[in-house]
């Protein structure tokens, strides 16, 4: 694997994971704001909005931990990419409908007049993080990941190796 690319992958993994941990942790203790933020997108029916508002911060923290520690990093990166794609669609959708809300990305949320001026930058940020997630998923392994300890490839004796050469 290209060494530089591997370290860029590590950086992408740590930055994306760090963003998830912060974003999730800020919301876990503010469930009412989190639910209100999801409702403000006016995309999901009421009961589903409540479930998403409660569960999303928890999922964000776990994806962040998995990325930072490098545990099942590839799967976490794929989930991360899917979520960022969903957020980009969500923000684009409120923008298109002329709804002005705080994206609720890092807590807060709800109606916020004048918020639409922030939409392009929020979308750009999420696209960048989406790209970083895709890179991590594409690289399979990045340096300094716990996965390297958990899933060591033990040498399997080669076919037809003479006895005694196994160890």
């Amino acid at each position, binding site marked *: 694997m290209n060494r530089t690319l591997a370290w860029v992958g590590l950086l992408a993994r740590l930055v994306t994971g760090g963003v998830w941990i912060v974003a*999730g942790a800020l919301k*876990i*203790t*503010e*469930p*009412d*704001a*989190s639910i*209100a933020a999801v*409702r403000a997108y*006016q*995309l*999901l*029916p*009421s009961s589903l*909005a*409540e479930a998403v508002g*409660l*569960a999303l*911060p*928890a*999922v964000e*923290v*776990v994806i962040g*931990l*998995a990325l930072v520690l490098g*545990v*099942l990093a590839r799967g976490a990166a794929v989930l991360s990419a899917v979520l960022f794609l969903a957020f980009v669609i969500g923000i684009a959708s409120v923008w298109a409908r002329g709804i002005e809300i705080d994206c609720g990305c890092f807590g807060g949320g*709800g*109606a916020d*007049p*004048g918020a639409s001026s922030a939409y392009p930058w929020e979308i750009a940020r999420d696209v960048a993080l989406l790209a970083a997630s895709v890179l991590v998923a594409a690289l399979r392994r990045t340096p300094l990941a716990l996965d390297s300890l*958990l*899933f060591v490839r*033990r040498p*399997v*004796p080669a*076919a*037809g*190796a003479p*006895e005694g050469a196994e160890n």
Partner: protein
Amino acid sequence: MSSNNSKASARAQKVADERAAQARRETRRRILTIVGVVAAMALIVGGAITVSLLNKKDVKAAPAGSSEYGVTIGDADAPHTVIIYEDFLCPYCGALEAETRDDLERLAADGKVLVEYRPFDLLSPSFGDYPIRAASAFALLLEESGPEVAKKFHDLLFENQPSEQDPDSVSDDDLVAFAVEAGAEEAVVREGIEGVSHRDWVEAATAEAKDADVQGTPTVILDGEVFEDGRTVQDVADNLVKALD
């Protein structure tokens, strides 16, 4: 020769078996590791959701008709009660008003619901003192001119709601004009409206809403439970009217 051959093939077989067994052990270990990690993740997700649920606040509103800081329409012993916490500047409150007012008035007149409107000041920290001026004028009318005039004034405030960007487009003179249109006497209310006579009332109403853990506006409470059934304000309004009819 043939025995040599069979010895060699037995040995090869043994090596192959060992390799297969080791590959199985390896796969098993991998699967167990993945299961363990996923289980740990599920535990963290569960723990975090539990923390969220413990931090979730239920609105504990005083029963409809029992607050000092509201105006009611309808029968006190109607089968349903609705409480609406609102800020005179909040655009969604204006939208909810426009969608529900006629239906709620009809249902209240038919004895099907007791509705209490509880205005308070949510938005002055962000958008200036219009919410305080408007709610103070509402309280003044409630005291000086009675609940019917105050309700009419409340309706006029929402019909002529300023935008959050320009809340001062509704001046004190405009508030006086709405009050007169609602049925108040200008001589009685002008001084109070211009001097924001009921600022204390607004602060107390706001404190009561905060104590009840009202998180935002509009907060609609149907028969004691927060009512949020719907994707948009319009959905919520339609479903509320449906639930009462």
